[in-house]
């Protein structure tokens, strides 16, 4: 298993609705090598976000199992999954998910502080600089543009030194030009850190920048790996 950091087997997700159970994911099998860059594509509603949240251990599947960084996270409890997340996982979300009451810098410091890192501030400042926002450290999220907020989110995601970075439509809320720059930053940092990247997008151009592409359609995988152009 040396090269495989993320593996899913027969992952099924069903949710109860008023009209009976709704199957969102239906038998997903995949394996991602360490350092790989994987794009998950599909139409809106095809289950991309659901898959990502299960792979990252935010949510539990109805069936099947998931290994992340050597742990079978589907067999862990919330407490243990949180530890795996702390150790191995970073997130970038479509809606940024910064904490409004904290400054940009404090948002970046948060994972470092959670890890009990002593030099949280210095490290965070380094990441702020890396994403080109050293002048905006004391600003609050609401005082930043969408692109800037996403940069802060990216700095925060990399600050904890994750092994796998999950990005859910990181450019989805941004205009094309800004989105392009954010994508550049993401890939650049990813290359530098050697992080495994799992990128959810419905943007074909963005997906093409990844070595592997997984296509989802109504909760099923279409021709894994071969979907790449």
């Amino acid at each position, binding site marked *: 298993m040396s090269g495989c950091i993320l593996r899913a087997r027969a992952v099924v997700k069903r949710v109860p609705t008023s009209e009976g159970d709704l199957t969102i994911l239906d038998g997903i099998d995949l394996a991602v090598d360490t350092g790989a860059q994987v794009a998950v594509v599909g139409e809106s509603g095809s289950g991309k976000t659901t898959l990502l949240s299960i792979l990252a251990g935010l949510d539990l599947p109805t069936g099947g199992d998931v290994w992340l960084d050597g742990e079978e996270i589907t067999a862990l409890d919330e*407490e243990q999954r*949180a530890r795996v997340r702390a150790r191995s996982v970073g*997130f970038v979300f479509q809606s940024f*998910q910064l904490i409004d009451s904290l400054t940009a810098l404090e948002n970046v410091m948060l994972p470092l502080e959670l890890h009990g890192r002593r030099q949280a501030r210095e490290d965070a400042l380094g990441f702020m600089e890396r994403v080109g926002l050293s002048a905006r450290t004391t600003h609050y999220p609401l005082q930043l543009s969408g692109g800037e907020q996403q940069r802060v989110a990216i700095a925060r995601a990399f600050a904890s030194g994750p092994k796998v970075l999950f990005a*859910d439509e990181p450019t989805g809320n941004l205009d094309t030009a800004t989105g392009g720059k954010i994508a550049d930053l993401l890939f650049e940092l990813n290359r530098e850190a050697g992080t495994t990247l799992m990128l959810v997008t419905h943007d074909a151009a963005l997906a093409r920048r990844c070595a592997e592409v997984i296509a989802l359609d109504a909760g099923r995988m279409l021709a894994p790996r071969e979907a790449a152009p």
Partner: protein
Amino acid sequence: MSLSLALRLALRDWRAGELRLLLAALLLAVGAVTAVSLFVDRLQRALVAESAALLGADRVIDASRPVPQRFRDLAADRGLVLADVIRFPSMASSEATGRSQLASVKAVTPGYPLRGTLRVAGEPFTRGRRTDGLPAPGEVWLDSRLFPALDVKVGDTVSVGYADFTVTAVLASEPDRGGGFMGFAPRLLMRAEDIAATRVIQPGSRIRYRLLLAGGGDALRSLHDAIRDELAPGYRWRDVRAANARIDSALERAESFLLLGGLLTVLLAGVAVALSARRYARRHYDHVAVLKTLGATPAEVQWGYTLVLLIIGVAGALAGLVLGAVAHFGIIAALRGFLPMSLPPPGAQPVWVGLLTGFICVLAFGLPPLLRLRGVSPMRVIRRDLAPATASAWTYGCAAAGGLGLLVWYSGDATLTGWALAGAAVTVSVFAGLALILLRGGRALGMQAGSVWRLALAGLHRRHRENVGQIVVFGVAVMLLLIMVLVRTALVDEWQSRIPVRAPNQFVMNVAPAEVGPVETLLKARTGYDGRMFPMIRGRITEVNGIGAAQWQRQRRQRAEETDDERDGPGGRGRPGILRERNLTFLADLPDHNVVVDGDWWAAGAAPSASLEEEYAAALGLALGDSLTFDVGGLPFTAKVTNTRRVAWDSLQPNFFIILSPGALDGQPATYMTSFHLPSERKAFLNELLSRHPTVSVIDVDQIITHLRRIITHVAQAVELVLALVLCAGLLVLIASIQSSRDQRLKELALLRALGGTRRLITGALVAEFAALGAFAGVVAVIGAEITTFTLNRFVFELPASLHPQIWLAGPLFGILMVSAVGYLGTRRLVRTPPATALREL
């Protein structure tokens, strides 16, 4: 999560204003409780001190024989301070003028009085000045009345028994004067070591011995425990409360009120803590979801936020203590004019009360909502609608138990608390029902109203679940305020009416039938007297239904306290003893301040009848229809008990245990008594009265009345203070409650504005919505307040219960004003911010 991280989180939240309300609520809870406890603690100590002055000591052992050395030794062992008072009636005479007069001699040892002070003067019937001294051996101080009676002045010699004394001062007042029978005679104060020389004390003399005790409560209690069994039946242990029944009932009610007020403050502040903690938790769902995606474990989240809460709790409790201390100093400063006595330093108890209140408020009211944060799913970053499961019943059970424990502990009375809570539960459910009806009705009304009201009432109805909650919270807050105002008014009015400004402060006794006319004329001319002369005869009951009184008493197994002369007389109430000689009166009509509770008052020309005070009758086992035989001046006569009365003992009017129908005592040598009001500065009139009618006795109770009035003023002020605190707490609840609905309103407002609602429309709708909420809350509150005050007045304070139409409009108006003002101020910013910003903030 480490403490330092929790600290940083707390600091950042503080900076963002997230914790202010929570802290304010805690601050108020702790501050209010501390201030009330401190003030009440000190006031109580001061009141006890002041009441102790009426006793001249903290405790008194009272007897008709000398107090045994053993008691003194035990008292001395406990570090108590002692002084002796020996009282007996004796003739005082002046050889120079040849006059003599029965005096009530009081012989004291150095140290007397242990509490309170004596006042002496150079001239009779003047106010005099305080003194710490006593007459030296061989000297006496005389009551003003003795000067005209003996026709002496300061410096002259008077004799008591075989001894001669120099009169060195006028005794203007003594703290423990009381109003006992022996008090009828004017006082002569001398030293105990001079008694022997007078040779007036013979076996069989009527002498009262008192051992005055002063010292710490523990020492006094310990002494009482040590000698309790030896006290009965010859010795009576008297404490401050026994010194005055009037203070007693006023104090008891004040304590109940303060207790109730403190209780409500804690409860309201607790609600404010719970509301603000809930809001804090809600606003942190997203925060926590992000923390969890970053790898924070549920346990870390739980401990982290518990730590944040504890940090706030400690900060709030400490700041609250300071606030409470400052507030109580402020109160004392404000009342300085009214607090003539220096307040004793407080004990440690109030500080603990304050701290523990903060602690329990945090744990019982603040923690449960925060514990929900543990369960926030990290998936919330993706699906916003994922709210954590509600906290377990266990958590709320703990919170309820904690809150209950706090209340019981604070009030020290589980029953009162139990009733208060049961009342609260009923109130809340009734309020909720009422609120729902009001909201429905409001919406129907709104359909026909203008756009502002339509919008407002539709908004109210849309969020009806939260709004029912808010109406209940507002309603309870307004109700509590109304209750406090009503009960306070009733209490203070009642206290003040007890001692009207022109309450009689002089009792005139021993007026011969021939003097009744002249004395009445003189009083009317000089004092605006409009009282009534009561005939009075000393007499005793010798037979009940033909059985000898002594035997009857034995049959009743009544512990007769034959020797007990205290507290019998004007305004006082003695302990019934059937064999005692009593003041009897005969009246055609029922006197004021008396109510017949059983049987009927007699008609003119009825057969000889007797009317008994109800407790007296009950204690002696006498009932309607019993026939009583009296011995008055050696002549027996018999009367039937035809009614029992309730007597307002604190009315300061001449009151009687036994009243007989007119005619029953015809031909007996009656004297008359009455009472009148004499302003303190016109005391010299007494000199004139006594010179013109030398056989008349006057008893001056002005001092006691002044005491009472002062105490009542203090108590009323303490009551007002508590009212102010309850008001603050109520306001805080209001703010917390409006704040907690702010986030949701914000969303709607932003949308409305984005959809093109003008600022005026939106402000209007907002204020209208709050006004409607306030009005509903006011209506609900008035109904609740009426029911509650009725119950409280009836069962706790024992005051007459009535409806209060004055609050029927004031309650809803107050609700409208308060809620729309606080609501508008709290949401004003929302209306002002451009919709884009507002939407983004969501």
